[in-house]
Structure formats: C-alpha cells, structure tokens
C-alpha cells in the first residue's frame, strides 16, 4: 500500500518494519488497538514520511533533485479508511518480487522478506548462508527492480499468465526447500514449507478462481500432510511405501483433496493440479499396494505431455512398473536413458535400482543404489540410497517395519 502511494519499494518496506517494531513494543504495554491493521498502516505512513524526509534532506545536501516533495504534502489516511486496495497490493508485490529479471534465488529471498515479512536473519538461516550475503542478495534484487523501472501495478492481461507462473514457481521452490532441509535440528530455523503454504493460501484467497493457484495449494497440503511420517528418528528418509500412514495429517489431506477436486472440475487443468491429483491418490490409499496405480499412471502420462520434464517421465516409468510389472518399467527406463538430460542423472539410477529390487535382481539393485548414492547432492537422499543398498546387500530384504 505504501509502496504504491510513494512508488518507493525499499523505503516503504523499512517503514513497515519500523511500524511493526513500534507495535511489538507498544501493544504488550498498552493493549491491542481497536483496529490493529489501521494502526499499523497509520504508523507506517508516518514512519514513511519521516524516512522520506530524512532521505530528502540527505539528497538536498548532496544537491540532488527533490523528487518526492509533493508526497510530503499528502495527509495520512484515517485509520479506519477502507483497505480494499490491500488485496491488489499484496498481489502486485508478489508479482514484483517474482519478476523475471530477478534470479530465482533473489526472487525467493525478496518474496520471503517483502511479502512473507521474515527478517533477513531468518531468511539467511533458512538457506544456511551468512546474513551479510542474504542482505546483499535482497538489496541487489530491490535495486534491480528499481533499475528495471517495472511499474507498481498488476501485469497486463497479455503477460499475466507467464508472470503468475513465475510467482507459483517461486512459492513451490520455497516449499520444496523446506522439505529438503538437512542440517541437524536447528530450532531457530523458520519452517519454509509452512511459510510457502501461508503465502499460497493468501494467493488463493486473492485469486480463488485460478485453478493452478488452487492446484499448487492442494499439492502443498497433500505433500505436507505426510511430513511427520517422512523421516525417522535419526532424520533418515522413509519411502512412501514404508511410511506409517496413521501419522499422515487427515485434515490437511481432506482439505487438499477438496481443493484439487474443485480446481480440476473448473479447469483449465495444469501441472500443479495434476501433481496434486497424484499426491491425493497416494494420500487416499491405505497402503502402497492398494494405491490406484492405473490412475496415477494416466495422470503422469498427461503431466509428461504437458511439461516435457524428464523427471516426470522417470516417475511415469515407475508407475508403469507398478501397473504392468518391473520389466515393463525397466523397458520404459531404457528408452529414457537415451535422453541427454537424464544421462548419468542419479534419479535414473535410483529408479532402476528400485525396479531391479522389485524384480528380485538384488545384485543389480545394489549396484544402482550405490551409483545413485554417489550421484546425489542431497545428504538425506544419499543416506537413504546407501541404506537401501545396505539392506539388500545384507540380505535383510524384508526388514521393513
């Protein structure tokens, strides 16, 4: 809102941060104001004017043009003024933070800072980089937006779909980053998955009729529902087939299924809805064996045509094995191995290992699990694959709980 009025993103953000600080110190002592949001807006507005004044004074000293003078004559809005513009402002801010001129890493950092309201220190910890590095990443991103001269308004209809896809991609990456966090138990780390769900929920509230926004929210809920069962006591990954399904979050599953069902009925169907639908089929199944694999296979086939992503093709091959047996799956993988994007990729080895294990070819399975473990850059995944190899090599094939 401030950014729109003043056209200055960085200063508006500082002003809001200061208003929040004021709130943190004043509210506990003086009690919550009648309209906390209006109070915040008003305080932020005053801070903004102070900041702009300070900035203006500095500029005058440096003999720069005083470009913001007219804004100073504005009056602050009444605290109870309608906040109908909030809706669009949050959306505009999201579009701005995920602007295609930014690198993905910058877009993620800026979104968490400006829309998510996380502190630079929190974001730095979440991504395990020094705070100074993250501060630099964020300020460069802001500078880049400023320099690019992107106006603070919603993108026009023509580019809207592409820009929306960029926003959804950033939110999806924040979510998956939360899922792959690896370094020990750090209680100070913010939960990035939760943050992504929160932001996507907000986005869904703003664009309730967009089926892909709904699909992404559903996908996050349906994936996150399994989070508690996904790792063991030592942080080791547990495969979907071996997870204790009683530990899945039934409420999140129900909400996710309702969302994806509604989205797909309305259409148009996109990749997030398809992935959510696949997740829903897994979540509904009482066990791996009782999963509706033919349906999953069909969904992967549609997704593959839609996205052309080779990793999707890998998953499709695994689903083929579940429907038609491991030999059919291995044959599908053999075709994929010719794709240069997959050659030498550890996921190909992992999929092969899995199917050889299904087929009872222990020796080949162990070799491929080890090759996959050597090729991954994810520590939990490396441990998982090493463990699978160890289990097979030791002959304890049926040691599953």
């Amino acid at each position, binding site marked *: 809102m401030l950014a729109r009025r003043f056209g200055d993103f960085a200063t508006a953000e500082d002003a809001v941060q200061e208003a929040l600080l004021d709130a943190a110190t004043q509210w506990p002592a003086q009690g919550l104001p009648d309209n906390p949001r209006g109070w915040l807006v008003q305080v932020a507005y005053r801070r903004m004017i102070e900041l702009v004044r300070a900035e203006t004074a500095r500029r005058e000293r440096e003999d720069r043009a005083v470009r913001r003078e007219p804004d100073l004559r504005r009056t602050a809005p009444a605290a109870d003024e309608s906040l109908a513009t909030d809706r669009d402002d949050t959306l505009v801010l999201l579009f701005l933070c995920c602007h295609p001129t930014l690198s993905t890493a910058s877009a993620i950092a800026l979104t968490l800072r400006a829309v998510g309201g996380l502190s630079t220190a929190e974001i730095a910890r979440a991504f395990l980089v020094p705070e100074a590095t993250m501060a630099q990443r964020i300020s460069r991103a802001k500078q880049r937006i400023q320099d690019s001269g992107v106006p603070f308004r919603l993108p026009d209809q023509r580019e809207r779909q592409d820009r929306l896809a960029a926003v959804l991609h950033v939110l999806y990456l924040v979510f998956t980053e939360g899922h792959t966090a690896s*370094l020990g*138990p750090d209680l100070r780390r913010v939960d990035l998955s939760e943050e992504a769900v929160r932001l996507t929920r907000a986005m869904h509230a703003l664009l309730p009729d967009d089926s892909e926004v709904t699909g992404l929210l559903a996908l996050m809920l349906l994936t996150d529902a399994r989070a508690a069962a996904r790792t063991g006591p030592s942080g080791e990954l547990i495969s979907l087939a071996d997870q204790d399904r009683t530990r899945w979050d039934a409420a999140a599953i129900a909400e996710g299924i309702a969302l994806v069902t509604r989205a797909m009925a309305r259409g148009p169907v996109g990749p997030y809805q398809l992935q959510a639908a696949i997740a829903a089929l897994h979540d509904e199944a009482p066990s791996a064996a009782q999963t509706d694999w033919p349906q999953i296979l069909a969904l992967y086939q549609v997704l593959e045509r839609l996205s052309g992503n080779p990793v999707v093709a890998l998953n499709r091959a695994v689903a083929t094995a579940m429907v038609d047996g491991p030999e059919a799956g291995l044959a599908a993988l053999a075709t994929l191995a010719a794709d240069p994007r997959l050659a030498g990729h550890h996921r190909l080895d992992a999929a092969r290992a899995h199917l050889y294990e299904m087929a009872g070819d222990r020796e080949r399975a162990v070799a491929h699990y080890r090759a996959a473990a050597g090729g991954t*850059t994810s520590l939990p995944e490396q441990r998982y694959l090493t463990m699978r190899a*160890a289990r097979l*090599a030791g002959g304890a094939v049926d040691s599953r709980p």
Partner: protein
Amino acid sequence: MKYMLLMQFSAAGTDFPSIDTWTPEEITAHIAFMREVNGKLSADGELVQAEGLAGPQQARIVRAGAGGAPVVTEGPFAETKEFLAGWWIVDCETPQRAVEIAAHISTAPGPGGRPLNMPIEVHPIMSAPPQEM
C-alpha cells in the same frame, strides 16, 4: 578462535570399508552419532557450520587456461582414493578444545559399532588483524 575440522579419507589413513557396504544398523548408528555431534556443538554455541560433501565422482578440478577460460578435469580421487567427505567449522576457546572435538568426531561408530578412529585434520582459521599492529 575458529577451527576447520576436515574429515579427509585416504587409502593410507583409513582401514575400514566404505559406508555403502555397512549394515543398515551400522549406518543408522553412524548417522545418529553425527547428528548428536552437531546438535551438541550447536547447543554449546561452538558450531559455526558443518557440511557433508557429495561423492568424489562429482568433484572437479578447475584451472584457468588460455585467456582465463576454465579448464575442467575430473578429480584425481578415483586413483589415489583420497577425498574430502565433509567439514565442520567450530568456534572454541582453546586449541585443546578443537582437538577434543576432533577426537570425539573420530570415534564415530563404524562396522560392528566399533569406533572408526578416522583421521580428522584440525586447521586454525586465519582471523581479522588485531586492532593495533
């Protein structure tokens, strides 16, 4: 003072089989030990950073060639069987304490639950100059 502790494996310094040949229980015990080490160092305020490195087959050696263009070769690790598996950076009071931490990490359990007694290199990290020189 900060120290870098390197978990460096070499044919000469290690006398245990590679981890992907251990039993599941042995691997679990090893991973649990490492998590405990990191958790403890973090709780004591001594942990700066700990990272595990991807497998040596993914490592590359880079030199600048003509005009500064990168010349990339695969690491010589396969032949020499020497590679860096991971590191810790700890911030502790005394050099003795850094040695103590390294010795504890060295006892990480391996096959049969016996301590690996693997070599851990302890390197003091250069710090900023003192106020007065």
